[in-house]
Structure formats: structure tokens, C-alpha cells
């Protein structure tokens, strides 16, 4: 009888979610496309004035990327609940928190990473100065996993309920605002040539905390949600 080690179980989990995402690779591209559409629509909606676009570029991109991420959030567990895979996961002899951590990682890889990769393109479309782009990317690299982790906990909490959409949005709002404020703060500072390290450090600290506690909270929330 071969009992799998933790590492093997983790890779199995990660591979599973990545394969699934790959099978539906069209859906991976969806947040990116939404983000692209939004940034394309802005020049239409506001008129193609370069200075105006440049002035709002950083903020628009941040908001767009974070919202595009949220789009993909509420399906994090729903398909697994519907087809009974989540039950099987809960019953597996592996620490649930770790497995969920892998799921969240896979989710981040498949939704946030493509967005981050596409960010320079978005930035170019809105004529954001090239010097600001690294700061924007750094801010996104820290803010997106934060959102993934917090979002996962909330999604897990609302998994058992039928009216998850509103709840989710309602609870995520207070979480988005600080992330956006810090990230936008860093980008704005960079755009004005001011030091931008402080808000980034805050984001990083929050991320460390979230990585440690997020999966645990997620597992607890999910057990509660399934017990109906």
C-alpha cells in the first residue's frame, strides 16, 4: 500500500487544478480579455486625450486587474462542490488546509498571473510612463495573492449558501479598499517621483500574514459550509 507523502499529494492537487484550467484555457484568458476590453473602452468613453488617460492610467489598471480577478473568484469551489470532488478532498487523509492552499495557488497562477503578464500591455494602451510599470507590477504581485487568499476564505464561507454572490461582494469590498489604496499609493508616488517603498512594505506584511493563516481559515470555513 503506497501512502502518498505530503509533497506528492500537493503536486497531485496542483497538477489537477492546472490541468483543469488548461483544459478550459479559454476561461483563463477571460479575466485578461475583460481587463483588455475595459482598458480599450476607456479611451472611447473618455475621449482619446493623452494627458487625461495618462493621469488616470495607474488607478484604472489597478482597479481593472483586481476586479477581473474577483470575477474568477466565486467559481473557486463551486464546480468542486457540484460534482462531489470537494467531499472526496475533505475525506482524503491529507491536511485539508494544505490542499486548499494548493488550490488557491493554482487559482492565482491561472487568473492573476496572466493578468500581471498582460499589465504592461494595458499600461501601454493608457500611455502610463514606462518607469512606473515596475512599481505597478510589484504592487500587483503583492496585492493579487492577498486578494486570492482573502477571497478564498470568503468563498469558502459562502460555499454552502445559495445567495453567495452578494455576500461575497459585500465582504470583499472592505478587503479591496485597503489593498487598492496601498497599491495605488505606491503607483501614484512612483508616478510623481516620490519614494514608494512604504506602501509596498505594508502590502508585503499583509501578504505574509495571509499566506500563513488564509488556508487554515479556508479549511475551517469549508468544513462548516459543507456540514448541511
Amino acid at each position, binding site marked *: 500500500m503506497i501512502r502518498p507523502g505530503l509533497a506528492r499529494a500537493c503536486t497531485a492537487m496542483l497538477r489537477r487544478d492546472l490541468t483543469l484550467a488548461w483544459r478550459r484555457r*479559454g476561461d483563463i484568458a477571460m479575466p485578461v480579455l475583460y481587463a483588455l476590453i475595459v482598458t480599450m473602452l476607456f479611451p*472611447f468613453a473618455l475621449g482619446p486625450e493623452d494627458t487625461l488617460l495618462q493621469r488616470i492610467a495607474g488607478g484604472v489598471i489597478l482597479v481593472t486587474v483586481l476586479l477581473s480577478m474577483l470575477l474568477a473568484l466565486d467559481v473557486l469551489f463551486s464546480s468542486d462542490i457540484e460534482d462531489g470532488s470537494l467531499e472526496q478532498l475533505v475525506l482524503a487523509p491529507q491536511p485539508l488546509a494544505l490542499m486548499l492552499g494548493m488550490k488557491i495557488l493554482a487559482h492565482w497562477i491561472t487568473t492573476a498571473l496572466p493578468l500581471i503578464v498582460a499589465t504592461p500591455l494595458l499600461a501601454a494602451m493608457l500611455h502610463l510612463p514606462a518607469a512606473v510599470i515596475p512599481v505597478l507590477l510589484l504592487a500587483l504581485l503583492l496585492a493579487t495573492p492577498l486578494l486570492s487568499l482573502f477571497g478564498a476564505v470568503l468563498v469558502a464561507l459562502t460555499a454552502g449558501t445559495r445567495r453567495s454572490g452578494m455576500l461575497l461582494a459585500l465582504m470583499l469590498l472592505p478587503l479591496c479598499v485597503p489593498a487598492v489604496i496601498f497599491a495605488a499609493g505606491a503607483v501614484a508616488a512612483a508616478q510623481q517621483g516620490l519614494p514608494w517603498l512604504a506602501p509596498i512594505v505594508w502590502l508585503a506584511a499583509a501578504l505574509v500574514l495571509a499566506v500563513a493563516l488564509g488556508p487554515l481559515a479556508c479549511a475551517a470555513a469549508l468544513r462548516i459550509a459543507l456540514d448541511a
Partner: protein
Amino acid sequence: MSNWIPLWLHKLSSPPTFYRFAGTLLPWMMALALLLGAIGLYGGLVLAPPDYQQGDAYRIIFIHVPSAWMSMFIYGVMGVSAFIALVWRIKLAEVVAMESAPIGAAFTFITLVTGSLWGKPMWGTWWTWDARLTSELVLLFLYLGVIGLYHAFEDRRQGARAAAFLAIIGIINVPIVHYSVTWWNTLHQGSTVDIFGHSKIAWDMLWPLLTVTLATKFYYAASLFRRARTDLLALESGKEWVRQIAQREGKR
């Protein structure tokens, strides 16, 4: 299938017949495309005089305009065969419609890129959201949508029918591309070439343009034949004639 379809057409639309027919015609089409292309581009790049306004930058016209025309022409072919595919469920029409899409997308892409490469020196910008440019971009998205929809289905014939439907819906965009310069006032220039009437450009520039245009038409035929042959192999994989080809060529 109605009986008013001429017999030869009926016969030709049988996959193995078309496969052979396309196979014989393909090299001739390709040769003609290469020959006419070489002549036309020599005439355009070397023989034709520079434009009195645009200098030598105008030489992009010899690929931009033929590609632009092809992008619309191919959409027309795709739309017609999509219609035939939907109404009469003829397999060959599905194949022609679906395999035209990538070629059309290629020409649309070329139009967009060469257009913006021309626009930078002429208008001072790569891109503006003017009616012709936007509608041409929409055309590209339509092509991509058709291709994507086709491949999104497991069953290829079902995918072909769905994509054919989209192609037919999208056909309204073709007149918009063409007439956008007259309906809205745009940065892009209006019609300068009128094959049957009086063209506004010099014959030295016109004949290479028309030759390259003809070359792209032959290229389209060749590429379509090549793609259709491949597609038929995949589609008819249950049939004996394909199995024979597979066994014959699989060993190599």
C-alpha cells in the same frame, strides 16, 4: 440537398473527389500566385515612380490594399459558404467556410499592421479610433471569433455550424468596412481605385496593384485547397478512402 444543384457541383462536393481535384489544382494556383506576386511587387517596388506627396512610403499600398480587399472578399466567400453549410448541410461548404477564416484573419492582420505602419509617417499616429480602422479591427475579431467558436466544440461539424452562424451574423460588418469612409468622415482615405471607371491613380501604380491583387486571389485559392484537404482528412477519418491515405502516408 435540392436537385437544382448542378450535377458536377454535387459530384465535386463529395469529399474524396474534391480532395483529388484540389490536389491537382493546388500547385498551379501556388505557381500563379508566386509568379504574379513577383511581377507585381517588382513593378510596385522598383518600376513605379514615387508619389509626389507621400514619397516612397506609399509603396506599402501594394500589400496594404490587396490585403484589405482580400480581408473583405474572403469574408464574403466565408459568409456564402456558411449559408450553404447551414441550409443544406454540405460538408464541403462547412470546410470551405471554416478554412477560409484563418486565411481571412491573416489578411486582416496584415491590413491592420501595414496600415498602421503606413499611418505613422502619413498621419503621425499608429492608430486612431476612426470608423474604418475600428471596423477593420472588428473584422479581425469576427474572424477570431469564428475560428475560436469552431474549435471550441468537440464535434467539428457542430462547431462548423455554430461558427457558420456567427459568420453570417457578422457579415453586416463588411459593408460597414467598405462604406465607413463615405458614411462617416474619417482620417482614412476614400476610394481611389475604380477598376471599371476612372481611377484616380496613375497607371504605373495601378497595374502592379492589380497584379498583386490577382496574386493574392490565387494565393487564397491555393491556401484554401491545402487547408481543406487537411480538414477533410480529419473530418472523414471514419471513411475508407481516408484510412487508405493514412496507411499509405502514415508509414513514411
